[in-house]
């Protein structure tokens, strides 16, 4: 399988220990960990945000050397915030994810795939938090980037839209993207991830297939919970 994104010695001092990681094309990787464990820091480091160090390569290109337009084609990032910085129409907001303004049809395709056509001509600040989440994910999908980094993309969504987004991200992976997202629901992480990375105190403590990376011992140690019949209880 082709490696799409590699991170070498990537770190954020005092928040994320140095790590070397590689993410395959066509894979969905779930980042899990308790609050404040370093999931957002790892995503920030993979996106090459200020404050992080190390080398991020996407399809063999060092992202630091790419122009913004080239970088959009290689890497799309959705942050954890759903705050509206500027009250654009949802369609105009999504259009800012296009590497060039030449493919407006792509906006409609993505909106249809997320069943969000009705949101297109509404102002972002007039949408609910969940609706904003879908628009922000649509903005990332419209870029058709090789690597997709999403910080808790389903945090504000009801179960129906959680499944819809995870299915849509799987479709993106099937087209060849490396999809990396943070998530709190361990069941969904197991069901929808090809790979799970467990982070605690800024360190990767487990990395592998969902079954390998999330044994009961790790869950009890890192999250302080354990499975009893169909419920999570405190360990």
């Amino acid at each position, binding site marked *: 399988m082709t490696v799409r994104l590699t991170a070498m010695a990537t770190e954020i001092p005092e928040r994320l220990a140095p790590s070397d990681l590689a993410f395959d094309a066509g894979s969905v990787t779930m980042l899990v960990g308790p609050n404040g464990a370093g999931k957002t820091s790892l995503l920030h480091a993979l996106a090459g945000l200020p404050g992080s160090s190390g080398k991020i390569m996407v399809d063999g290109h060092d992202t630091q050397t790419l122009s913004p337009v080239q970088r959009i084609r290689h890497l799309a990032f959705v942050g954890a915030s759903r705050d509206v910085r500027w009250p*654009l*129409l949802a369609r105009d907001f999504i259009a800012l994810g296009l590497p060039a303004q030449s493919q407006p049809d792509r906006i409609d395709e993505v909106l249809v795939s997320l069943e969000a056509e009705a949101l297109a001509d509404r102002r972002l600040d007039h949408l609910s938090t969940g609706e904003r989440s879908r628009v922000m994910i649509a903005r990332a999908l419209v870029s058709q980037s090789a690597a997709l980094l999403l910080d808790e993309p389903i945090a504000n969504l009801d179960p129906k839209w959680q499944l819809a987004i995870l299915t849509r991200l799987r479709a993106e992976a099937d087209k060849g993207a490396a999809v990396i997202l943070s998530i709190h629901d361990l069941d969904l992480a197991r069901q929808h991830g090809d790979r799970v990375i467990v982070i605690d105190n800024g360190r990767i403590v487990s990395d592998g297939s969902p079954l390998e990376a999330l044994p009961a011992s790790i869950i009890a140690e890192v999250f302080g919970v354990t499975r009893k019949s169909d419920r999570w209880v405190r360990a």
Partner: protein
Amino acid sequence: MSRSLYIGFGLIVLLLVAASIVIPLQSLPDLIENDPGLAWIVIGELRLPRALLALVYGAILGASGAAIQALFANPLASPDITGATGGAALGAVVMAYLIGFASPFGIAIGGVAGAGIALALLLMLAGPRAETATLLLAGIAISAITGAGTALALALAPSPFAFYDAYDWLMGSLVDRSLAQLAFAALPALAALIYLAKCAPALDRLALGEDVAEAMGYNIGAMRRNIIAATAIGVGAAVSVCGAVGFIGLVGPVLARRLTGGHPGRAILPSALIGAILLLSADIAVRFAPPDRTLPIGVLTAILGAPFFLSLVARMRWSARP
């Protein structure tokens, strides 16, 4: 904004520059007939610098306002927020007291120095990361300090004439500025304008959120510092030559964004054109004041701009309702 709209706005600007040169009409034909040499001096050395100053000053106010609003994600922000206008005004008034109002260049240098000190103080207070809220608070604090300093300077004026001259200058005026003064204001303003226009794509994508724009490869921290520096230098130089003119930097971007689908970055150039149109129009309008009265241009822009500002706040309040 479409190419034809740019051409339309460009033509309006040219028309207003021409109008600014020939208005008031009644004196010019006589002068050309009786003393053509003097007529060309009036046109070339008095009216042309005045028209071009209005063009440049309006354009830099419009462009800076659009850039600052995009940067601070606040449609009510204006170039004054950097403290540059206040710094320039204080520097110019202090310099005028030291060397007198007869030395326009000294005043302009004092103004730029004042804007530069205000800018240095702002960047020092805001720190290397220069976060938005800190910058905003630092700008407000500096504006308060420079405002108090200017009021103190006026209160301690060495003579009633010095007080009147300083007060008159603070109200803003484009009258009797030389070609050299025009160059002093125009060169920094044009350099700042070019830089601000280049920031348009990054400022548009900043609407997605600072972290998203940075993940796209835009260096937002550096751009923030540079936009503040460009605004302080461009607006500071213009304030030094013409005094403070308010509201253009607030109104221009709001009108421009109606032509750019609300996008804040791509509104920078249209806002520069609208700013130029507004200030050229205001400068022509003040010439129709009663013959024995002078209407300062800064007062006119404030009289027209303040109700607009109020309606903007009211509309924002209305649209914020669920």
